[in-house]
């Protein structure tokens, strides 16, 4: 039961169907990569799982440890243990990183529970040190004026602090130089283990040199068309996506990039 199971998921945005009967199983304790050409619906999947209001689910289920989360509000899904590292994290002017993470942790405490401030800052500073983030960042507004790399580190910092059961990392490698990529990947790897199931969404194989997946899924036109071991990612790197699209019996006409439907 400890897994995310996506069954026959159909979802659309602005009347256009993006997910067209997607099936995927992510067991707790494993890292799976989700790859696919631009416009295949990878980011849509992450948004639908997290409950973004722009996306309408028309059929199917997303079961988190056996419970369908699709009827839940986004915050309830998050408290059930689902974390999403955003491709384009929002800027939140006037809300400091420390206050933001504290509010998120506070929301996970039972009614009337209070966070221990000393312990909170100890943990926060330790995680920041690991991500090579300046401690002064705690007093900065969330993502406000951050560089691309700083934003992605901040996503991993939140993940480390919130300790989710399942994480979806949406194109966490996009916009990162090689040093930032290594730091972010190390951050994810530190969280790997029997208590985390992670779905790493990426267009490129490069990230998977650093975060080595247990399984690789290939998504084309809103469906998983192939699953395999980590060597599948290398094959995609060498041969591109066209052959897999043809083998799936689909035509190679890329839809608009995910970003267009963001």
């Amino acid at each position: 039961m400890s897994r995310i199971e996506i069954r026959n998921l159909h979802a659309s945005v602005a009347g256009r169907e993006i997910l067209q009967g997607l099936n995927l199983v992510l067991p707790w304790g494993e890292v799976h990569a989700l790859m696919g050409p631009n416009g295949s619906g990878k980011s849509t999947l992450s948004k639908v799982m997290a409950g973004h209001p722009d996306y309408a689910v028309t059929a199917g289920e997303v079961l988190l440890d056996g419970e369908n989360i699709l009827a839940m509000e986004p915050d309830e899904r998050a408290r059930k243990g689902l974390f999403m590292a955003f491709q384009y994290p929002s800027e939140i002017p006037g809300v400091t990183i420390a206050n933001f993470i504290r509010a998120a942790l506070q929301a996970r405490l039972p009614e009337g529970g209070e966070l221990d401030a000393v312990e909170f800052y100890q943990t926060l500073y330790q995680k920041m040190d690991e991500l090579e983030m300046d401690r002064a960042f705690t007093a900065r507004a969330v993502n406000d004026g951050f560089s691309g790399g700083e934003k992605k580190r901040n996503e991993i910092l939140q993940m480390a602090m919130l300790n989710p059961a399942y994480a979806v990392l949406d194109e966490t490698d996009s916009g990162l130089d090689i040093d930032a990529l290594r730091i972010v990947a190390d951050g994810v790897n530190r969280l790997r283990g029997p208590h985390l199931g992670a779905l790493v969404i990426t267009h490129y194989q490069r990230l998977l040199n650093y975060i080595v997946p247990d399984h690789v899924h290939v998504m084309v036109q809103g469906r998983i068309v192939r699953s395999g071991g980590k060597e599948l990612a290398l094959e995609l790197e060498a041969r591109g996506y066209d052959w897999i699209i043809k083998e799936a019996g689909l035509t190679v006409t890329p839809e608009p990039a995910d970003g267009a439907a963001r």
Partner: protein
Amino acid sequence: MTTSTDNAPAQWWLQCQRAAAARFAALPMPGRQDPNWRFAGAPDADLASYQPAAGLGEAEREQALAASDNAFATAGGAVFGNEQLLSFTAADDALAKQGVIFEPLTVALARHPDLLQKHFMSQPVALGSEKFAALHRANCNHGILLYVPAKVRITLPLTAWHWLAGDRQAVFPHTLIIAEAGSEVTFADFYRSLGTAPGLAVSVTDLLVGAGARVTYLGCQDWNEQVRSCHLNAISVGRDAGAKTLNCNLGGASARVESHSRLTGVGARSEMLGLSVGHGAQEFDQRTRQDHRAPRTWSDLLYKNILNHRAKAVFAGLIKVAPGAPQTDAYQTNRNLLLSDEAEADSMPGLEIANDDVKCSHGATTGQIDPEALFYLLQRGIPRHEADYLLAVGFTEEVLARFGHDPINTRLRAMIADKFRRGKRRQVGPADDAAAGSANARHPQHPV
């Protein structure tokens, strides 16, 4: 200077009051057709229903004193309640030896009539509330005179708490700050109520900032939500001097603020900040003027309003650059965050520029909470009401960061948080909302 200790007002003062009473009677009640009152509610002709406040009972005095908690270190302070001085903490001897005068008006009238005759309401009210300025002049007997001699720097802020209690009582708090050349001072006025009865407050704060002086001022309006108020804030800034003012609206049924900067000396600077948090059927009416009258002057205005339920805010600001004020930099920004579909913000930024060697900009935005930002907070497990609260409080931080006085900001943050808590309680049930609605029907919402 007179050495009289008799606190009976002097003849000249009484004459000014009588003349002001005549002016008040002669001036027409401003109406919506007046451009200075556009978008404001229809004025209340029923000022006569308010009584000049007549002191507080013993229990109320204790309550007011206990609640006048600065929570930061001060160089002096006063607490007034219903036109009575409840307590006074004088500036310390070192400051007094340097010539600092910090006195209640009643004392200053006897000891420093020269200063008051010269400066008391010396800056004409010009943004629409002339009638209320006259009402204030006719009735004001209490307040603060703060005189800072040349080159004296007072590092800690001074404060005044003004309390209002009782049914349909009226108060006229006054703060006059005279900062001589090269001096520095920070002052905060807090306006609050005991109880929930309707009342009237017409307050005036005049800041006279001498050459090279620095004055930082907070006016924090937190009357109860049945009070109508008018706060008139004039700021005169001399050569190479700097004023920074923040006018906050948290309470009040309808609150009007007029803040008028006059940049009279070469190189004068005025930063004008506003922050209002409204809910229920509160109305905030804010009128500002950035009057550039000398070369190389600078002003920057930022007014932010957060409005929930059916609350309404009006912002009307004018940057006015005289022919004799080349190389002026003047900026004006009004931003409104609406937390409900019924909330309303009316923004009227304006420019009137009489020379072509200036840098000016103005802008206004009105919007709701950014849905992507909200989703981000929700995805972290933060419940909707808490996420809305964090984003709304975040919206205030830009103003507080610009104000930049940490101890006062800390106090303000607590008051803002308290205001949001009151708003949350309001939202608890429809019965509560209905009760608020009927109360509003008894006391129509518009500036007096």
